């Protein structure tokens, strides 16, 4: 971008106007401040974030009902376990006017499979994508591919781009800024290290976008983002810290809005290799001792969802089997020989029932969570201390570090896909199987899941996994279910944080 363009952009931002966007009778462009920056139009490393702000689109979309819905596709069918059929929409165009037809989609998929490491990791090598009708693409694989809908909904895999234009640009990513390579309601007009501007795309296939444009400013400091909304320099501040909620709620003109329970949250991992949690009775007792209601409602003041299950409530495969039962916890520990002493703490054969909670400084909300866990575990006689590791993933895999229960922020069902988490964190020998968990039945479930396309059969397998984790051989459990959160001004008071980081749709508009 030239210096003149950058200066023009800075001036436009300073006056709250985007070039070509301001019209007297139109609502103003939506102004968003976010923590992450979009560093370039490189679709394989940076550009994939643009589906979040209304520039780009995917073939499918994962929604809060736990289902994948067609987005750029008109439909997705699975007539046979090894065959998926995509039905395309007619008359969809890229923002530069080129048609989004079967050729264009196949080109985008082929490029992603070549260029994107995420695509290479998730798409079976034998998968064949072929046009089988004017508006039809068929996907065939040697083995059933159950997670194709989730793969099509993952922004890091198959973003639909005008590949003719992308390939013509070579490595000159900046030339793609105004090339209209996406299909979304808002077309990028400028991208700098500080901001991205987009204006409404008049030919958008779903209808006329509700706003003249969208401005996204990249502001790493959370306090500055909130103050920007307070000072009317932005309408939406993304990723506000939970700690800011009381102050925001007490400030006139500011609102701390929360979304529905999402695909991630704080997840507990038990070290089953050594220490007190080698004893399955202690693990089960820990699960009963945790008061999930207190954590969600009292500690986090409803800013997170209560974990009533491993996955978010409302997903078809979720089994709501969490319960707090201190009597049962006590009974489990009694039966296992852990005797309560005069101080209320338990021991066995002279060994105190003591565990170490592992947290990490990048997630400050883990401090109150660990503190309340200490209190909750103490009620059943388990002593807990807390240790903080920088670089938690490496630290937990290092045998030199002593820990029993690690608390991490994870997404076990990102984009509606469950396989990746299970294969990375739970499968025996997996790269992030921190606690050395090795349950043959769970391992079999993880091995089977990728190839089970029948919905009922998948649900049965996932229910069994959740049963094992609560009742039989616990290892991993949710402590909270995260909710999207955003600070908004009065104009966007009714704005709800997008599910799966989908912040701007063609219908997003001021409330008043």
């Amino acid at each position: 971008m030239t210096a003149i363009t950058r200066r023009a952009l800075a001036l436009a931002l300073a006056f709250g106007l985007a070039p070509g966007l301001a019209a007297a009778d139109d609502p103003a462009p939506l102004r968003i401040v976010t923590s992450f920056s979009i560093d370039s139009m490189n679709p394989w490393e940076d550009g994939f974030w643009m589906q979040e702000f209304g520039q780009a689109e995917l073939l499918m979309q994962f929604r809060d009902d736990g289902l994948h819905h067609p987005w750029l596709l008109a439909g997705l069918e699975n007539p046979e376990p090894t065959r998926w059929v995509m039905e395309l929409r007619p008359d969809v165009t890229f923002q530069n006017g080129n048609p989004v037809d079967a050729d264009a989609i196949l080109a985008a998929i082929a490029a992603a499979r070549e260029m994107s490491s995420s695509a290479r990791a998730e798409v079976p090598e034998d998968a064949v994508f072929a046009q089988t009708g004017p508006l039809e693409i068929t996907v065939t694989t040697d083995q059933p591919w159950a997670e194709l809908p989730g793969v099509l909904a993952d922004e890091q895999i198959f973003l639909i781009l005008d590949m003719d234009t992308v390939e013509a640009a070579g490595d000159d990513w900046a030339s793609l800024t105004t090339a209209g390579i996406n299909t979304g309601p808002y077309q990028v007009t400028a991208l700098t290290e500080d901001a991205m501007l987009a204006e409404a795309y008049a030919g958008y296939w779903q209808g006329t976008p509700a706003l003249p444009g969208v401005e996204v400013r990249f502001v790493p400091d959370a306090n500055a983002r909130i103050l920007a909304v307070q000072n009317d320099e932005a309408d939406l501040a993304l990723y506000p810290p939970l700690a800011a909620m009381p102050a925001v709620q007490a400030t006139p003109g500011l609102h701390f809005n929360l979304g529905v329970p999402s695909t991630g949250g704080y997840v507990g991992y038990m070290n089953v290799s050594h220490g007190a949690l080698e004893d399955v009775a202690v693990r089960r007792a820990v699960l009963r001792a945790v008061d999930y209601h207190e954590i969600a409602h009292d500690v986090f003041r409803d800013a997170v969802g209560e974990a009533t299950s491993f996955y978010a409530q409302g997903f078809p495969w979720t089994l709501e089997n969490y319960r707090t039962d201190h009597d049962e916890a006590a009974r489990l520990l009694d039966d296992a020989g852990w005797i309560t002493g005069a101080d209320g703490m338990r021991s066995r054969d002279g060994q105190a029932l003591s565990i170490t909670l592992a947290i990490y400084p990048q997630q400050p909300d883990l401090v109150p969570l660990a503190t309340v866990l200490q209190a909750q575990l103490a009620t059943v006689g388990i002593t807990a201390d807390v240790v903080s590791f920088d670089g938690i993933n490496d630290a937990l895999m290092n045998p030199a570090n002593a820990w029993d229960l690690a608390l991490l922020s994870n997404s076990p069902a990102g984009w509606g896909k469950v396989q990746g988490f299970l294969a990375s964190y739970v499968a025996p020998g997996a790269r992030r199987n921190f606690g050395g968990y090795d349950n043959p039945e769970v391992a079999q479930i993880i091995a089977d899941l990728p190839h089970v396309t029948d919905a009922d059969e998948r649900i049965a397998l996932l229910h069994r996994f959740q049963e094992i984790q609560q009742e039989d051989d616990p290892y991993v459990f949710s402590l909270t279910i995260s909710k999207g959160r955003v600070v908004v001004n009065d104009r966007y008071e009714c704005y709800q944080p997008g599910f799966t980081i989908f912040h701007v749709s063609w219908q997003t508009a001021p409330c008043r």
Partner: protein
Amino acid sequence: MADGTVSVIPARAPVRVAGARILQAVLAALGASVLVWLMLPLAPGDPVEMILAARRITEPTAEQIATLRERFGLDLPLWWRFVHWLGAVLRGDFGLSWRTGQPVLAGFAQRLPATLQLVGLGFVLSVGWSLALALVSVRWRGAWPDRAVLAYTRIAAAVPSFVLALLVLQFVVVGAGFGLVLSGGAGMTLLLAAMVLGLDRAAGWTQLLRATLLDHLSRGPADVARARGAGEGRILVTYALPPALLPYLTAVGVSLGGLIGGAPVLETIFTWPGVGQWVLQALSVRDVPVIQCFVLIAALAYVGASLLIDAVALWLDPRLRERTA
């Protein structure tokens, strides 16, 4: 000279001193680079996973990690990476940012003017502020201006600059409507950020200059001038200030690093588009090429600024020139 002899200062002495200081600067920059190269691998956490997390890839595959590790050269021995990096730097190539993939030097050059504006204005304000306050404080020693200055220096020394910055942002920018939170390079934001930076530094410098001025006011030359009927203001400016400036300048030079080091936090809080904010982001994700470039240039800038301070001190005090000669 008073005894009739003439001190001859060799013309090459300042050049030799400057040459030695430049050599020191290069060695200091090299030492700092080696230190950072040695220490960064000791920091916990995998830089590749941090970079991927910054790109929102929080659950990377083994292939993604391996690809980046190879691209960043992390599969090579540390000494080899350092030699390779140093060779490239000597050719003027600071490499690509791991986080953004953009050339480091271009990113640095793009942001440097904003940082120079902030640090430069902060420096001018802090020097001017501390000089003025110290003179006022000493001139009216024991009276309310002196007490006010002392109160300011104690409060400023106790309040961290980031707290002051947050208060300014909340009450001056948002509350009173001066400037913008999202600066975009706005002049009012620059002024406010520079004031915070300057006020923080000025407190210590004011205390030092005040103490030195008081010391010189009680020495012989000031007493002689007083006996000859000179006014206190004239004595302060003519007899106490010039010698008091030497330790003051030394302190300014020494704490210049603090001024430069304080800029990143303030740039982040005031969203000032400078090098500091960029480097803080790089630190958070262990973007080594950016960190190394910053360390090298900051070390050179720091030693360069110290050299400048030395030159001013030489110019101010003939005795130093004689000593150097």
